[in-house]
């Protein structure tokens, strides 16, 4: 099963998005929120990202989605440092990409397919 990690500047945002994803993906898909700094403020935590990735890593690989700026840079740094080469960072709109990936992960799709769905979410029109 593919795991999903949500890296946001905001702890609340990451947890709220996780709630939404669990609803479409089901409880079996490992979805981990890594929002906020170590002390829960606005920003990014290397340690929270690392822990989240390790938790979400259940053999099918991990898709990491980020909001902006330091979330991207910190996640990239975690991935470079991490010994296990099982997580990928995807360039996708945070919420829309995460929902698309979660739907597919819940349906048993593999990491490549989830990654593609997240990326393509950029081109889905809302109106």
């Amino acid at each position: 099963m593919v795991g999903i990690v949500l890296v946001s500047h905001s702890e609340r945002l990451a947890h709220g998005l996780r709630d939404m994803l669990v609803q479409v993906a089901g409880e079996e898909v490992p979805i981990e929120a890594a929002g906020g700094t170590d002390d829960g403020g606005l920003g990014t935590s290397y340690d929270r990202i690392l822990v989240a990735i390790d938790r979400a890593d259940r053999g099918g690989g991990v898709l990491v989605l980020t909001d902006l700026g330091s979330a991207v840079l910190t996640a990239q740094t975690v991935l470079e440092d991490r010994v296990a080469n099982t997580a990928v960072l995807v360039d996708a709109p945070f919420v829309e990409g995460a929902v698309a990936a979660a739907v597919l992960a819940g349906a048993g799709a593999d990491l490549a397919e989830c990654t593609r769905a997240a990326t393509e979410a950029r081109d889905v029109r809302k109106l």
Partner: protein
Amino acid sequence: MDADLARAWVAAVATSVTEHAAELTDLDAAIGDGDHGVNLRRGFDAVVVALAGFEADTAGAVLTKTGTTLVSKVGGASGPLYGSLFRALGKSLPGEVDAVAFGDGLRAGLDAIVRLGKAAPGDKTMVDALTPAVDAFAAAAPAGFAAAARAASAAAAEGATATTPLQARKGRASYLGERSAGHQDPGATSTALVFAALAAVADA
């Protein structure tokens, strides 16, 4: 259709939605987020409450109120969609409603759903049940209201069943691509319940 028949219809839909809530939710869990039954129950429960305290002389007023309540109480995509249907239907109805006028109102409701949701037939949505139902109602309208309602109900049920092999192209289910095939669309299924309720009260 008069105000009492409109009330009876909506009450019958509410009862049916309650009975089928688990089924609708299971269908939605397969290709959506598993809340369609919960959403519609919440919406129609609110409609029942709203109509109980609502004075109205016409079917149009009852159905408009139904739509307005659904829009604000359902909480899912089916809220604004069914809400638009009932509001457009209600608003388009004249004081005296015969089968032809009701068929025109249903057409206005379908148009409103399509304007809002942009789904075409074949996209695996409620539009796939609603479109044939509206067509069947209009075609059978000369034979009277009850006959038209029966025809619409049969067409809606068939339309709902026919969504099973389709690939979703609207809403969350569309992310599933080919994987969405093999599951009946929850919204098309609830649309069939709406028309089954209409046929039941029209016959009574």
